[in-house]
């Protein structure tokens, strides 16, 4: 991360605009115990009160790092009930990073957010169809499989 991802200009600009970056050694107590960190790099997305909403472990290149953080921010908004903001965030992932590993998760959470926002099942079925056709090998396609019955 230090030699490839964090020195990247786009990553630096993105981090400065979107998040408060916090970095601690993996063995720093009590944080490493609080977050049960066993391996590095472990990246955790927290809300402004310090509550965890999303995490990944392992190296991410810039083209995966940015959509991962965007999905994490979207999940904070989803968990807070701000569904329109979450939809907007997931749309950004899908528009700018459709090939990233975070894209299927963005499709899933966009569908779920739309459902929660409208209380209509169509977005869930649409999410499943997109996952089935465009991200068939993703685990998110399996998670959305029940929505085909709606």
């Amino acid at each position: 991360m230090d030699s490839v991802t964090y020195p990247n200009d786009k990553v630096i600009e993105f981090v400065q605009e979107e998040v408060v970056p916090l970095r601690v050694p993996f063995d720093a107590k009590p944080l490493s115990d609080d977050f049960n960190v066993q391996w590095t790099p472990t990246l955790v997305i927290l809300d402004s009160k310090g509550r965890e909403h999303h995490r990944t472990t392992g190296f991410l290149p810039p083209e995966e790092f940015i959509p991962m953080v965007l999905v994490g921010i979207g999940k904070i908004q989803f968990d807070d009930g701000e569904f329109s903001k979450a939809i907007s965030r997931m749309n950004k992932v899908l528009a700018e990073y459709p090939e990233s590993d975070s894209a299927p998760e963005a499709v899933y959470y966009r569908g779920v957010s739309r459902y929660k926002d409208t209380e209509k099942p169509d977005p869930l079925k649409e999410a499943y169809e997109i996952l089935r056709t465009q991200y068939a090998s993703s685990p998110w396609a399996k998670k959305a499989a029940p929505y085909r019955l709606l």
Partner: protein
Amino acid sequence: MYLVCLQIRALPGRRAYFLFQAVPLFSFSLVDSPYTIRSFKIRDFTHLLPAWLVPSWHRDTIPRVVKRERSRSGGASMEKQIPWEEKMDHAIARAGNEKKPILLDFFNPG
């Protein structure tokens, strides 16, 4: 833009060093010189500077390895870095003020 290093042998077996720093672009080293110059070296420090500080006429002299490393890192200049917080309470206070989420990176300093 110069870092000038003068090394003068004032007494037998002893050497005195004089550093004159203006701006670190080059280093001139005068070696083995009680009062006469026997050798003259120029050392280039421009690869340590951000690209915008280096005159255009000098950019081609930046070592290729440094250029390659800059390219790999996405062209980041030396001074542009992520402004990491190091304390959770500072990060939470800042996140509250700026209404932003926190990216927490557990890293291996070793």
